[in-house]
């Protein structure tokens, strides 16, 4: 009994982390049609920058949450620069975008190796969240439960942003019909930069939030990118609800698949992705894009 409960709760927490990672990916792909293969690198870069702040530069040590904010802002700025100066030059050319973002991800990986070396960094769980929450006989790490709360807050925040603000309306217009949006006076190119920065920042935020669980190490980027791809393909691109539901589904498949069918762990993880691609290419909640 407790075995199933632990797995179920863990599925939701892992799903929460995946949502933070994949929401940005989905937004970027939904609006800009850019398959951003640097997303894993942005996650890792955020984790490294955040971990460095937490562990201290010289004698200055930064609070975990402030470090998360700093990492988010820094990587968002980097994302904006990459969009403005690299990706904007390749509009609509998906092959070139894939190659450029893939190349960037290799460069980012070597950059991290150069700056931080190969040693894994250990990020301590933030103060006050190190303990356990007890449900009867069951103890569950408080930090993992905190991740669920954080993911919910971000999800609601993003929903309000996209659904209730002028900027959100503009982004949605850009997703639906960029040409028509331009005609009515929306500066879609500026929106692109904003959305890319937002997506990059979200990935970095996920990186540092995941730090206390995953630790930070070379290769983290390539470990996380496929998970983001599965979530987004499953849930549908450009759909916030899709990312959310997709993340939770992948969280469950990941946890129960590995526990019950360890030999087929990857098979079970990627099978739903294949089925969705064949039967419903736009994803569970995505809209069909011709």
């Amino acid at each position: 009994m407790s075995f199933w409960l632990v797995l179920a709760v863990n599925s939701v927490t892992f799903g929460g982390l995946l949502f933070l990672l994949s929401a940005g990916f989905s937004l970027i792909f939904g609006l800009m049609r850019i398959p951003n293969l640097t997303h894993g690198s942005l996650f890792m870069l955020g984790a490294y920058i955040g971990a460095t702040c937490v562990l201290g530069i010289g004698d200055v040590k930064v609070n975990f949450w402030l470090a998360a904010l700093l990492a988010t802002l820094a990587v968002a700025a980097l994302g904006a620069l990459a969009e403005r100066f690299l990706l904007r030059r390749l509009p609509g050319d998906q092959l070139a975008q894939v190659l450029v973002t893939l190349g960037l991800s290799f460069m980012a990986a070597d950059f991290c190796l150069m700056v931080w070396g190969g040693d894994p960094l250990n990020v301590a769980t933030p103060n006050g969240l190190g303990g356990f929450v007890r449900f009867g006989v069951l103890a569950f790490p408080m930090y993992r439960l905190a991740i669920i709360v954080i993911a919910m807050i971000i999800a609601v925040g993003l929903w309000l942003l996209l659904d209730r603000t002028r900027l959100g309306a503009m982004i949605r217009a850009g997703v639906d019909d960029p040409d028509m949006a331009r005609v009515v006076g929306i500066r879609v190119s500026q929106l692109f930069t904003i959305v890319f920065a937002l997506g990059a920042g979200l990935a970095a935020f996920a990186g540092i939030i995941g730090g206390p669980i995953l630790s930070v190490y070379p290769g983290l980027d390539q470990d996380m990118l496929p998970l983001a791809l599965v979530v987004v393909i499953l849930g549908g691109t450009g759909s916030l609800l899709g990312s959310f539901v997709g993340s939770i589904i992948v969280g469950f498949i990941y946890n129960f698949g590995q526990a019950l069918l360890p030999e087929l762990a990857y098979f079970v993880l990627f099978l739903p992705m294949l089925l969705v691609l064949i039967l419903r290419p736009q994803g569970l909640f995505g809209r069909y894009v011709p």
Partner: protein
Amino acid sequence: MSRKFTRRKFMAATAAGAAAATFKFPAPAIAQATPFKLGLLTIKTGPLAQGGIQMEQGIVTYLKEKNYTFAGRKVEFISADCGGTPAGTKTKAQELIERDKVDTIVGPLAAFELLAITDYIAQQKTPCLSLAAAEDMTQRRPNPYFLRASATSAQAMHPMADYAAKEMKLKRIVTISEDFAFGYEQMGGFQQTFEENGGKIVKKLWPPIVTPDYTPYLAQIADCDGVCHGFAGSNPLRFLKQYAAVGLKYPVVTGETGGDDALLRSFGDEAVGMISSCPYTLDLQNESNKRFIAAMNKDYGVDPGFYCAGLYVNGQVVAAGLEKTGGKSDDKAALMAAMKSVSLTDTPRGPIKFDHLGNVIGDFFIRRVEKSGSKYINKTIKTYHNVSQFWTYDEKKFLSQPVYSRDYPPLKS
């Protein structure tokens, strides 16, 4: 009859030499005047770079100590980054052997890299000293040009199991390790020795190499009094963190990659109490280890781990082998035989020699992670001396059983 080399003769000889040089007389062929070429195959980019970079630091530290001179010959060092792929390793090995004409190769790091080049190095007759632990390289399919001064996968796990059963008095253990050959061979060796000493392996778990979250596996650890893990790279760090986070408290034992001294700078409190068995330990008090650690601290600002030390020892073996051949390296078979017959007393891992299959016989250290001030240390609590790859088993009998694998030895019901 003694011949004294007087000042006068010296002057005459010098003058003659100078004259020879000035008049461009054909110089007499001086044996082995060319530098000895030492190639390193390592990984400096990608996810496995951590160990690869440490390997290079280890060998460079030794070369510096010897002033780049082995047995009176200048050593030319060529480092190649094979990127952690079998194809890359093959390409780089070919470059080193055919273009750079290296006399000996140290590295590569991983078994899958070594397996890509094992036939090639035998065919090219180039001695290769690698850390790759694949058992059969020195057991059922030995390569005459391969030498291993570190350990086979199970070599550290046999004493670890002996210690877990006899001194820790553990009875029921769950093993967990990456789902690949190095993991199988480590856990297989542990299981064999542990069960012979009255213990029982109750479950074997095999997460994939890339497992961001181990919780689904940790949830299956129960009904035991200890856990043995065989993780490598940065995985031990993540595994231990998550192990502590789900509230598991069983004692943890592991091998050389799981308790590597180089990981100590990344570990947190969750590692305290973990027991590991390793062919190298930072706290071994001998001359070469002190020298080695001091040089590593000075040049790189870090304490060395098992990968660094492994390459440092490889350097010592090459130097001692070359000493034995009188600096000659043309006859590769003779050079290989010389290296294999090397017996060193002062290496950072203690005394070593090789068995007839080219694998090391040396000391293995059982250590416990402890906290000392703000640092974590591995404190040696027992040393097993002169451990061979066959542990206490008869070689013939050991080689007649299948190589340790996912299902060998099988779980007892």
